[in-house]
């Protein structure tokens, strides 16, 4: 579904992604794990068009999308839940969701997706008129995910959904990610919480200082001693 071939991304002089390649098949949950500053968010931003790669190609459903503007990429079917949630704080929950469907014109489809999102996150239904800046961190994460789903993506990019959330909420969020995946949305999940990420993912990539250093099924990586030492806090 998504195929990234040898991309190089720079912030000015800083070489942030060094020849990264990655594959995602339709229907999978793929997770990208790595430490702070390894290049996880950079990779997501490059896929969603917020950053442009200097070299390399990104193919989404066999079409080149590298360097395209974000609105084209959202239209093609990739939407992103940005790191740190970034809800529109002075707008209501409902208005936030409406903006998620900004590029869509099909009123009926949008209404259906409203219902779907509210079914997935009953909390948001309870608070649909509330200003989203007054929601709790977990609710804001749900809203950010709901907002991204309103674009009806085929590929959903999640940037550290567990960030700053209590362990119980993290569990809830990950259960919902699995539910979203079961409805047919492919997911690329960027996480520092490697244990949680590997527990729901089919496959995983490990990124270190801008390079992919390991990849495999989630089970394989979870067993690997090296990975356990570096990311899972195991022995």
């Amino acid at each position, binding site marked *: 579904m998504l195929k990234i071939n040898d991309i190089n991304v720079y912030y000015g002089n800083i070489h942030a992604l060094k020849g990264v390649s990655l594959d995602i098949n339709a229907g999978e949950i793929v997770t990208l794990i790595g430490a702070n500053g390894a290049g996880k968010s950079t990779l997501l931003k490059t896929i*969603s068009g*917020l950053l442009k790669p200097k070299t390399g190609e990104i193919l989404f459903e066999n079409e080149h999308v590298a360097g395209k*503007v*974000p*609105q084209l*990429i*959202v*239209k093609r079917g990739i*939407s*992103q839940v*940005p790191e740190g949630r*970034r*809800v*529109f*704080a*002075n*707008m209501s929950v409902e*208005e936030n969701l*409406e*903006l*998620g469907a*900004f*590029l869509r014109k099909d009123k009926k489809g949008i209404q259906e997706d409203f219902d779907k999102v509210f079914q997935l996150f009953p909390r948001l239904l309870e608070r649909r008129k509330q200003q989203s800046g007054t929601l709790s961190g977990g609710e804001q994460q749900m809203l*950010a995910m709901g*907002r*991204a789903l309103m*674009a009806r993506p085929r590929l959903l990019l999640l940037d550290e959904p567990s960030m700053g959330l209590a362990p119980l909420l993290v569990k809830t969020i990950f259960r919902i990610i699995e539910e979203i995946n079961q409805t047919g949305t492919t997911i690329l999940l960027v996480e520092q919480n490697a244990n949680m990420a590997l527990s729901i993912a089919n496959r995983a990539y490990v990124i270190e200082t801008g390079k992919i250093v390991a990849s495999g099924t989630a089970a394989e990586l979870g067993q690997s001693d090296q990975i356990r030492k570096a990311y899972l806090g195991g022995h």
Partner: protein
Amino acid sequence: MAKTLKNAKGFWGTIVIVIVLSVVIQFLINGGTLNSFYVNTLFSIGINIILAVSLHLIIGITGQFSIGHAGFLAVGAYVSAIFTMKLAMPFPVAIVAAGLAAAVAGLIIGIPTLRLRGDYLAIATLGFGEIVRIAFLNIDYVGGASGMTVSHLITWPILVACVIITIVVIVNFTNSTHGRACLAIRENEIAADAMGINTTFYKVMAFAIGAFFAGVAGALHAHNFYIIQPVNFGFLKSFDILILVVLGGLGSMSGSVIAAILLTIISTFLSSYPEVRMVIYSLVLIVMMLFRPQGLMGTKEITAFFKAGRTAKGGMQDDKHTVA
């Protein structure tokens, strides 16, 4: 849905009241009940409302901190003056030309600078305002430093029409999909980008529309004050407009309107005491910001008060008298 309809009713109700009031004022002007001092104050109020509302779209709605608004005002003033005084065109044509010229200036300055954020954008727009002023200072065709004399062509109906058109256009823009996009940019530009909103496009659009109405205000300004000089369009003028928007409450259009009315009245009456005028004016601003940092209206609109109760309604409408 019902809520928007109710708000719209309140909004159009206000417009009708304003029109009725302005007809009454026209009769008072014709009958000589209002002397020229009051008429002049009313003209200043109208012009300041247009300026405040046009800057409100850029700062309050789209969240782009621009402090070069006097530049657009100057472009409008000079272009309209050239149209009426040099080319002998009718005043309404000059107003439209002034708006268009300012909008073009808005595009020219907006396309490169709106990539900048926050402080950087503020400095760039400040620079733009100064460039415009210096340019007019050095063009002999428009009189250089001594400026241009302009006929007093402004009339009450033209002013009211411009104010109402400005407000109606900007309110409708704000409530449209485009306005939503602009609000999203104000709230969080990165998230807006990620939602597929073309942030540069909407920023430039808001900037050009704001500039258009600032140009219209410039035309009215030029044909009200008999003379225009580059010195009137310095960055202090930009700050005067900025103060209206901030004082009214960032994001509230009715706040900008009310602030424009109140501050124009305050500064007009203080002009009898030139020694202490700026001191008192500044004190008013400081006290205001200490006790109501969110501005007069916060982010609320006046239509919110229509539903709140009759007392609030009566109170607010007193302010509205002076809109007209």
